């Protein structure tokens, strides 16, 4: 509803403002400097990835994607996590995971079957 009325960048900045409003509620009592620089870097990169994910999500909706489809497609990120975890985290895939991967790929294909009218480019689309 937001990106129907304002630009993606404006929507994101206001969403970030709303996000920061409640961060005081989770402000830790312990200083953040007690942790290793690697973990702190991971935490900051975590926030950057989260922010970029939301930015791209807003851009997808602004460019003609339906909220229901875009949200469901983006929420399939565990597919990439499971596929990359053997390489990056040295985790082993079970047959259960393979079933999940199959379902996710099938879901992505079927969700992308959209009518031509709804996939038209919206006016004022964002340039990233």
């Amino acid at each position, binding site marked *: 509803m*937001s*990106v129907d009325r*304002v*630009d993606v960048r404006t*929507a*994101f*900045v206001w*969403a*970030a*403002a*709303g996000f*920061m*409003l*409640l*961060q005081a509620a*989770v402000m*830790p009592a312990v200083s*953040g400097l007690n942790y290793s620089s690697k973990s*702190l870097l*991971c*935490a*900051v*990169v*975590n*926030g*950057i*990835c989260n*922010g970029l994910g*939301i930015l791209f*999500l807003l*851009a*997808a909706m602004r460019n*003609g*994607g339906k*909220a*229901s*489809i*875009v*949200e*469901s*497609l983006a*929420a*399939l*990120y*565990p597919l*990439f*996590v*499971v596929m990359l975890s053997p390489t990056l985290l040295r985790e082993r895939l079970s047959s*259960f995971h393979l079933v999940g991967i199959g379902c*996710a790929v099938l*879901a992505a294909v*079927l*969700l*992308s*079957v*959209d009518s*031509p009218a709804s996939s038209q*480019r919206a006016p*004022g*689309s964002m340039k990233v």
Partner: protein
Amino acid sequence: MGTGSITSEHVWREASSEATSSVDQRDVVVCEPSAPPLKHPDIDQDRILAAQTSRPAAAMTQPGPATDLNLAAPSIFDAQVAALVSAVRRSLKTKWFWYAIASSLCWTGWAFTAKIGSKEIPPATMEFISSFGFVLVSLGVLRRKSPASDKSSAGKCFALISGILLALGGISLYGAYRTGYNASMITAVTSLYPVVTVFCAVGFLREKLNKMQVVGLLFAVAAMFILSL
């Protein structure tokens, strides 16, 4: 004389019963008057027999038009697959699809950094520190000028509410983890949040989904549940 006499009627009956028992059923079919004359009887007969043996029994019992439909079925299936492929190709050319994939990839990075970082940092502190990363992205976005047309206060208000709800969602998630309940079950249940989005989008935004997308959503829900366990 009376009992041993053979009349002409007896002779005719004997002859006709012998004839029907000795004649093969296939010969009767071949000799049907409706059957067209064969130009090359040996070759054509082999072809007919081969076609009859290759067809399934159910198809052989059906009359002509139904058999034609059975033969045309693969072409209808091919047409449906071709329509599906062309629809997917059409979506691959749209920007929204690739933005959604980019979003998915960014959250893949989010999941990996969360996994690595949370080995040392508690979840709530992780949420707080990661908000600085969120601010960094906001600062990067603020450097670019917004269009002058962005005057809608309703749009900004909706964006503000979405940010507050995002933070509330994160805080609630960490609160759920603190209860000590099975973490994988909490993750599995919370990963199904797009279901709520779909209901809201269909209910409030009047979005229409085709049959393929509805089936896709069911597969997506199954995949999210399985992969988050």
